[in-house]
């Protein structure tokens, strides 16, 4: 028989205001096995933990139940406390009286009744608990970073500086991400390339960093500390070891009609290309869909002009398989498509553009060489209207429910830069709210208004109507004057909502990392573990986790690196002992469990079994404890009832249910 202690926490008033904790203490004392019960204001505090330790010693407890908050919050705290007092940590169970009871109920009597039931269930389980011992697994001292934007670059540099090998996998031909497309950056207005390119170079020249560009993650297996990843290096058609980056091929390539991804399709590029002049690596790729040699067999100009003999039309995709201890996701974002917002006439007029397109237009290396001009006729604009919150903050099914967080600031930036360079241009910004929380951010926005004379109008735009003379009629609200405004503009710029890069869904599935309804990766805890995924060994960096500007991205990238380093610094990891185990006497070797196990943890052995005196060789299931994640799929599938999860055995679960139904 177990000797069980029950510890009921008030959680300040979180639990005690709705649950009669004294009553719970009184009731649980009648439960089988319970030899001690007490309540305290904060069980998780030092004093609370000391009470637990004292009771373990004085009453010779063999198991304890803590009635407190969610086990996600403090299970580890209490298990560690129990272990220090000499109890096996797996003899500790949590009854969640906060999230599952006090927070969701109002009536004290009902809540107390439920609290007692939850406590009873946990007590019933502890009665059947057995001490478990975690196993050990080795840590591969190498990290993988998926995505080579500023987030991925920063994370990689930080991990590499700590002395660990890091690989960056970037799907485009160059690292740099969106930041490489920006012209100048708020709040300091320094040129994006001037602060980004040195970081790109630092990553590329770091002896501990290997960069795979034009590459994608194909397959991930394994678990924290020991992931195995297949990286697909897409065929560049250019031998990177020979290419000198002279650029002659790009110049001479006769196929120049492919839309430039880097310039958001505002101009074209050659079939053989590097996305931008400062690309890293400075090795072009051939876009085979645009290349005449690949499409028609005729051409081969680049091969002829390349002095280094680097062109290789026969190159094939290559798979590199590598082991990693930690994986950081840094896949970033894209702007949303504007198909649902035809009232803004984006598809009808070339002079209605997104803010990211404006970045390219303002940039000296962009499609207009940095001259602000209308894309329809190349004319200098005199009136520019900015519309904020396009597709953000929408609770209908057309857009995104969240605030994209960066557009208020970059719109103020754009407005200011235009007024600074072209004082003859009138700039109007339609806004719903101006959101500028951040160091020196509101001051930045006020400068746009007060020093640069940008006209901010509170009210959303309803419609943009292209006129026969090429002007754009903007119909908007001025809520402060209670007027409807009709304004003729030469250009309209849409602060378009951002969304996670589409391929993140595939990545998340491969990593079994969770994503939210908006495809942003979910953190292990929104406040206390913001850079970790709930999947052990997977970390989050940059906008893939939620909208962020560069300073926030870099800070988070560093935090993700620290977490990864913390993992890589360990030689061994304790594995979760709550793994599946087959009862050899009952197993009939049917293979059902191996077919359902998502981690490939089950294999079969021919084993001599002594079944009540009958000795025979049988095929039985064997679980690899290092691979098993304790998901329990096999225990449900097993037709003979042989497979059981340690720490969550069928008997334990049934005992809990019985206790609840009693």
């Amino acid at each position, binding site marked *: 028989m177990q000797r069980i202690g029950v510890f009921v926490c008030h959680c300040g008033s979180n639990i005690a205001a709705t649950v009669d904790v004294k009553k719970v203490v009184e009731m649980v004392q009648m439960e089988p096995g319970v030899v001690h019960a007490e309540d305290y204001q904060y069980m998780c505090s030092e004093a609370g933990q000391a009470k637990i330790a004292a009771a373990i010693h004085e009453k010779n407890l063999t198991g304890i139940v803590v009635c407190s908050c969610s086990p996600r919050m403090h299970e580890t705290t209490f298990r560690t406390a129990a272990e220090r007092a000499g109890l096996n940590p797996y003899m500790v169970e949590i009854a969640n009286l906060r999230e599952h009871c006090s927070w969701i109920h109002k009536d004290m009597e009902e809540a107390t009744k439920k609290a007692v039931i939850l406590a009873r269930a946990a007590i019933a389980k502890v009665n059947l608990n057995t001490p478990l011992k975690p196993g050990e697994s080795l840590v591969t001292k190498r990290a993988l970073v998926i995505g080579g934007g500023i987030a991925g670059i920063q994370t990689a540099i930080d991990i590499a500086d700590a002395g660990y090998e890091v690989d960056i996998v970037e799907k485009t031909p160059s690292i740099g991400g969106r930041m490489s497309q920006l012209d100048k950056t708020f709040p300091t207005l320094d040129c994006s390339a001037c602060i980004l390119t040195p970081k790109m170079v630092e990553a590329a020249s770091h002896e501990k960093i290997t960069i795979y560009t034009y590459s994608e993650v194909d397959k991930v297996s394994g678990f924290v500390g020991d992931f195995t990843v297949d990286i697909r290096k897409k065929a560049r058609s250019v031998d990177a070891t020979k290419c000198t980056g002279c650029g002659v091929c790009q110049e001479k390539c006769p196929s120049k009609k492919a839309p430039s991804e880097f310039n958001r399709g505002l101009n074209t590029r050659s079939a053989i290309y590097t996305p931008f002049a400062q690309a890293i690596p400075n090795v072009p790729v051939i876009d085979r869909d645009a290349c005449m040699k690949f499409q028609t067999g005729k051409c081969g100009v680049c091969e002829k002009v390349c002095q280094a003999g680097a062109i290789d039309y026969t190159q094939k995709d290559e798979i590199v398989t590598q082991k990693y201890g930690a994986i950081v996701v840094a896949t970033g974002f894209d702007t949303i498509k504007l198909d649902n917002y035809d009232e803004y006439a984006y598809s009808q007029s070339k002079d209605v553009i997104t803010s990211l397109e404006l970045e390219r237009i303002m940039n000296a290396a962009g499609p207009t060489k940095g001259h602000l001009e209308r894309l329809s006729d190349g004319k200098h604009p005199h009136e520019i209207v900015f519309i904020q919150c396009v597709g953000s*903050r929408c609770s209908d099914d057309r857009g995104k429910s969240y605030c994209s967080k960066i557009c208020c600031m970059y719109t103020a930036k754009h407005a200011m830069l235009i007024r600074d360079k072209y004082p003859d241009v009138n700039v109007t910004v339609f806004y*719903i709210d101006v959101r500028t929380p951040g160091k020196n951010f509101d001051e930045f926005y006020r400068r746009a208004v007060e020093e640069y004379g940008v006209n901010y109008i509170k009210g*959303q*735009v309803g419609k943009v109507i292209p006129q026969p003379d090429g002007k754009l009629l903007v119909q908007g*609200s001025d809520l402060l004057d*209670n007027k*409807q405004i009709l304004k003729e503009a030469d250009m309209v710029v849409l602060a378009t909502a951002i969304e996670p890069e589409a391929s993140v869904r595939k990545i998340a599935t491969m990593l079994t990392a969770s994503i939210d309804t908006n495809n942003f990766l979910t953190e292990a805890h929104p406040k206390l573990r913001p850079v970790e995924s709930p999947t052990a060994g997977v970390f989050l960096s940059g906008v893939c986790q939620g909208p962020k500007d560069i300073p926030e991205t870099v800070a988070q990238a560093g935090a993700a690196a620290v977490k990864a380093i913390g993992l890589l610094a360990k030689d061994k990891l304790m594995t979760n002992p709550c793994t599946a185990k087959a009862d050899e006497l009952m197993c009939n070797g049917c293979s059902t469990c191996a077919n359902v196990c998502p981690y490939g943890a089950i294999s079969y052995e021919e084993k001599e079994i002594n079944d009540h005196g009958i000795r025979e060789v049988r095929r039985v299931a064997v679980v690899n404890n290092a691979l098993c994640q304790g998901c329990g799929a096999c225990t449900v599938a097993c037709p003979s009832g042989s497979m059981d999860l340690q720490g969550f055995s069928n008997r334990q679960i049934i005992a809990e249910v019985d206790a609840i139904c009693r």
Partner: protein
Amino acid sequence: MSHANNQAEKIKAISGVNPLKCMKCGKCSATCPAFNEMDIKPHQFVSYVQNGDIEALANSKSLWKCLSCFACVERCPRDVQPGRLIDAARQIVVRTKGQTGLAPEEIPELLDSEVPQQLLVSAFRRYRR
């Protein structure tokens, strides 16, 4: 429940609109073709209902100027459907007991291309019982 509250609840029930969803962006008013004719503007319908000021809404010119074109309903980013509120307010007015509805002979002089069909139909309803 006070009379004003009662009326506001009625409007919400008839229209199915929850005014609390409004984020006060003004896109409805930005889009409204009858904006200049209105004394209470589309985005204001929402706050009037929210604040329970139904009398002002019932007496407003806007009730009869709204074209029921539902441009506001179409464009509202929060799916508030302000046009439905004015529809509901109009219904409440024309259906009030003791009030005379529209007589057939009155129609020709009211009829012009701008009068919404919906208004005529609801104005026909007599509520003399």
